[in-house]
Structures are given as C-alpha cells and as structure tokens.
C-alpha cells in the first residue's frame, strides 16, 4: 500500500487553469453556449422563464460602440465564471459550498451544500452564477442525451461554470493510466468554438503556450480593479473593446444581450 500512496502523491501536481478568449475572432455564433448547456446537463428552459430566471452557465454579450450607425461597431463577449483566485463568492457563502480548489484553481460549487441564499450571486461581479428557480425537466426521450459525467442540479440551488469538471475527471483518468501527471483537456466551449477563439491552459506551467498569449499587449481582463484576480483573459486589438474592461456593465445599466 505504501507504494500506492507514493504513486498517488505524485499525481497531486497542482494546476491553475485559465482561458484566453480572442474577441477579434469571436463571431458571436453562440456555439459555446449550446455546447456548454449540453455538456453540463442544463435542462431546457420552461416557457415562463425570462433573462433573469433562466440558466446559462456562459453567455455571449453583444456590445456596441457608441458611434452613430454607419461607423458603429459590435463586439461579442463570451462570459462565464472567471475562476477568480480570490473569489468573492467563496467569501460570502455561509455554507462553505464554494471552494477554490487549490489543486486546479477551479472555483467549485457544491450544490449539495447550497441552500439557495444567493449571496454568491450578489457578490459575483461577473453575473456568472445562476439560480435554479425550477426543477430541471427534460422532454420525454431527451433524458437519454444527458451527460453521465455531470449530475443534474435541483431547484433551489445556485450553479456555475466549473470548467467542465466532468471532462477534467476523464482527463485525470487518462493521465493516470498513461502514467503521466499532465492533465490536459478541452472544456466544451473551447472545443465547440468554430473560430477557435477560446483556449485553455495551465497558468502555473511556464512552458504552456497560454503564457505567450497572456503576455501579449492586446490581452486584458474584465474588472481587474476589483481585485478578484480572475483567470480568464480576453484579447482584442481594438482600443474601444479594451476600454470596456473597466466598465461596470457593458451596456450601461442593462446586462441583456440585446439591449
């Protein structure tokens, strides 16, 4: 057993997963949003939901620059949990249902512990958390499309992006069997993006290709001034897009996609 224990320790290599999203490449097609919902067993929304009560673990905001029409430009901003290194949602949770996993840098949500107070939703500056207002229901036959690697959530709890943890588990198994300690995987959003605008990497690994990306001058992060240390990076060579990053809300007071 001692040998086994040693083996296990070896695999406890630490990661700090982060993503780089190229806003100049993003066409706003929304494939990532669909892939995310399918991967994470997000149930089809009942007819009565609205923008506030539906669940989209990631969404694509459309932001327009203020210029008048012929010169007006648009950018699409895919937004999901920023996997902050100092997550406000973790600090406010009275149930300790939120945990910054020190081994992966992923902010975990334990829905079994969550009792639905929604403090974390109020605390999250990125609106990356969603409350289950309704029990998830799949139309007859559609339950067969469920992903067995992800447990569905019930009514009354908050859920969020956990960087496709089911895929992480699979990658962990694969690495273990290959005898390697290098766990690499693609979340559903990154895999589905036809423009390859979303890329994942290990921020802790100095040899990861993501390091070159985050050092580029066009790379920025949203709301850095709040000090939550997000691990999602965005890229754009357009000045007005970069200036978005410090605005409280991309479209004034509304965070609706079509506002």
């Amino acid at each position: 057993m001692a040998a086994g224990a040693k083996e296990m320790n070896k695999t406890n290599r630490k990661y700090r997963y982060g993503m780089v999203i190229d806003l100049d490449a993003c066409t706003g097609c929304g494939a990532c949003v669909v892939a995310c919902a399918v991967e994470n067993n997000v149930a089809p929304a009942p007819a009565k939901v609205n923008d506030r009560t539906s669940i989209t673990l990631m969404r694509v905001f459309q932001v327009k620059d203020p210029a008048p029409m012929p010169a007006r430009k648009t950018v699409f901003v895919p937004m999901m949990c920023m996997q902050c290194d100092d997550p406000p949602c973790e600090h406010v949770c009275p149930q300790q249902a939120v945990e910054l996993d020190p081994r992966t840098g992923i902010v975990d949500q334990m829905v079994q512990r969550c009792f639905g107070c929604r403090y974390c939703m109020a605390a999250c500056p990125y609106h990356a958390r969603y409350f289950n207002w309704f029990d998830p229901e799949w139309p007859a036959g559609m339950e067969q499309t469920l992903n067995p690697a992800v447990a569905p959530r019930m009514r009354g709890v908050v859920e969020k992006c956990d960087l496709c943890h089911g895929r992480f588990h699979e990658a962990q198994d694969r690495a273990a069997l290959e005898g390697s300690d290098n766990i690499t995987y693609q979340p559903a959003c990154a895999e589905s993006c036809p423009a390859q605008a979303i890329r994942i990497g290990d921020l802790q690994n100095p040899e990861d290709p993501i390091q070159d990306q985050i050092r580029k001058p066009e790379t920025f992060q949203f709301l850095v001034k709040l000090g939550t240390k997000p691990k999602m990076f965005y890229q754009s060579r357009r000045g007005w897009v970069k200036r978005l990053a410090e605005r409280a809300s991309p479209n004034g007071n509304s965070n609706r996609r079509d506002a």
Partner: protein
Amino acid sequence: MRSGFFFFAGAALMLLGGWVGLPKALYKQQAQPLDFTHKAHVVKAEMDCTSCHDFRQDGSFAGIPRIDNCAACHAEPVGTTANEKKLVEKYVTPEKEIGWLVYSRQPINTRFSHAIHVRKAELKCERCHGEHGKTETLRPFEYNVVSGYSRDIWGRSISRLRRASHEGMKMDDCMDCHKEKGAEAGCLGCHR
C-alpha cells in the same frame, strides 16, 4: 421510586424497540434476479475478479458483466444446478441482460474512478468490496427507503462501531483512506 422504574423501563423498551425495529423499517429487501455463486467461479473455475469484472481497453472499469460475458462459458449448462439452468434458459439463450442490483452503487453525484484506484494506486478489490468473491450465494439487496441508496453505502452496522475495514462506502470512509494516504482531493475531486 415506582414511577421512576416504569419511566426507565419504558425508555429502555422504546430504545430497544427502535434499535431492533428501525433498521428493519429503514431498509427494504429485494432479491437478486438470479442467485450467483462467486465461490464456484473463483475456487472451482479458478477465475479472478477481473476475469468478469474487467477493464476496457482505455482502462476504464466496465462494471457489472453483461450477458455475453456469461455466454462465453455458459452457452450450454456446464454443471447441473437449477440456477445455471435458469441462467441459460432465461438469459443466455434469449440474450437478455440480468438486472443485477448493485450493492456498491453510489449516488449520482459521486464520481469514482476504478482506473485510478485499482490500476494506479493498486488497491485490492477487497479493500472496498470485502470478501465478496468468496460468497456462495448472493445476499438480498437492501436499500434505504428514504434515499434509495444501497445499505452497503452506510454499512451493515447501523451504529458503525464495530465494522470491518471494508465496510461502509460513505464519504467519510473515502476521506479516511485519502487522508491516511495523503491524497486529499477537493470537493469536485470526487463529486460531479
């Protein structure tokens, strides 16, 4: 004095009733669809666990064996027992799966990788499943009427005081072993 005696006698009676009755009320029994003797397969046929409970080529655990696994040897009865006759007639010939009730089935939000535990950490099957391979008959499947979980998750002993090292598959039981081996994982290490 007299009333005190009745009070304590009554309390003891209630406690005893609860101690004996509650496990019976809490767990319901269900018979396995077919009686299976692990012992005959392990001792007489000299097989080991992985002969039937095998790993796929990619290293993942294939779980409870399917009927074609049985059919490989039992296309025709090789012995004389009534159970084997039932197996061949009811399941192998019509190619029907046996609806085994899985003692060790974990709740849906639990992720357990046999690949990591058995292949990499080299744990023995018996560490968690006990001496199941030496049993001559399949005990009835017992499940908690409230949660629907198999009784093996909690373990046979309701008090959990004198339980065997393999007994119990609760989160605490996993955590104890993980702590002991210095392989602590975060919440989503084992949940999904």
